[in-house]
């Protein structure tokens, strides 16, 4: 039995990404499967996905087989409703937690200029995309929020470094601000 095919069978029946260590755990000691062998079998598996509807990806918590984006329109029809779109408030809150972690609710509110909707934070915590990673040494010891591995998995990222970098905002020279006093 080819190791790459065994790994395919394991990954096609796993309900979450599996790390190299976890994959190693599927083999009994007497099978004598070294980690390096698993690594090269994964490469072989990746190659064998050419021409298939699925591909091997590595995300934060490990490897998984997923369908390619090109098949999205057909696969989506399993579900009658379109996948729900996240609201702007949801995306902005999540984006701040992802790019600015660790961050407190108060800091999110300050940047967005509006109160944080408690149910958004709750949904993020429950989806396991966000977690409390500590408390800030301030009165009330507010919670500091950060993203989880599941968040990275969900967005096909290996680490936070893979988040797109944001355009640098221009520095400013206050005295150059035009003083247009319209109507004055």
């Amino acid at each position, binding site marked *: 039995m080819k190791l790459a095919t065994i790994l395919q069978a394991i990954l096609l029946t796993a309900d979450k990404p599996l790390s190299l260590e976890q994959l190693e755990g599927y083999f009994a000691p007497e099978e004598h499967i070294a980690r390096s062998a698993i690594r090269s079998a994964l490469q072989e598996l990746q190659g064998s996905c050419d021409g298939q509807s699925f591909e091997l990806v590595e995300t934060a918590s490990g490897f998984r087989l997923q*369908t390619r984006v090109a098949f999205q329109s057909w696969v989506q029809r399993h579900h009658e409703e379109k996948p729900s779109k996240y609201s702007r408030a949801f995306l902005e809150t999540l984006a701040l937690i992802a790019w600015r972690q660790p961050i407190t609710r108060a800091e999110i509110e300050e940047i967005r200029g509006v109160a944080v909707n408690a149910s958004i934070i709750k949904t993020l915590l429950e989806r396991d995309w966000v977690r409390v990673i500590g408390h800030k040494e301030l009165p009330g010891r507010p919670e500091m929020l950060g993203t989880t591995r599941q968040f990275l998995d969900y967005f096909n990222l290996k680490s936070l470094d893979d988040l797109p970098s944001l355009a640098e905002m221009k520095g400013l020279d206050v005295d150059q601000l035009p003083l247009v006093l319209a109507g004055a």
Partner: protein
Amino acid sequence: MMETGFTPSPVLPPQGGMGVQTEMPFAVVRGEKIVAMPEDLYIPPDALEVFLEAFEGPLDLLLYLIRRQNFDICDIPIAHITEQYVAYVELMKEFNLDLAAEYLLMAAMLAEIKSRLLLPRQAMVDEEEDPRAQLMRQLQEYEQCKQAAGELDTLPRLERDHWLAQTAADFPRLPRPQPQVSLQELLLAFQDVLKRADMFSHHQIRREHLSIRERMTHVLALLQGKAFVPFESLFRLEEGRRGVVVTLMAVLELLKAHLIDVTQSEGAYAPLYVRPVGAVLEGAGI
């Protein structure tokens, strides 16, 4: 420009799709009667609420006004934008919209900045940070946040762009240890959720209630998949008086909730039948 000190500019929500209305009843802004909606501020009154909802908050609105006129954040004509923003907030007030405090705060801040700019330069106290700088920074930060949110939304996402590829494997499962739960944990969870839902004060559920709820579950289970069952078959005499009363109350509760129907065949003293609501439809479909 209008006498109202109102320097309107075309304002439409980012999503667009708003109808243009020509004739409409008008409002009083700053004590001045406005007879016609400013030409380039075509927002039908009914749509104002929708318009407000299209923005995530005062920074979003401000950013929109700035972008709409193609200003770089770094050189916003503060006074100009301030007037526009304040006029806009005023207009919304005229239509009795519940303005979030955040919008009013922003209006106040803009007004403050503008008033400072009108003062001679040296009047600005040095130690205090220039409020313009603070506003710029806030706007820049918010714009970056918007950009980040946009980036996040375009990342390929599981269950939207990709799906987990899975093959079926009905192999006999090796016995799998299941997580253990204690009744205590369950109680605490219930207490928590109720505390959160603030229901303690409103609902006092007595002991009897649970046994009736349990019996409701039983009765519904008995009815499942059946077109109807005889009324008497729901009762078990060996349960005694209390059991019979509980069953009867459960049936009455289910009737009240329109979850079951009770019917009687023709004739006095004819047997009663209980059926789940919608059973007839289901039965016909099979």
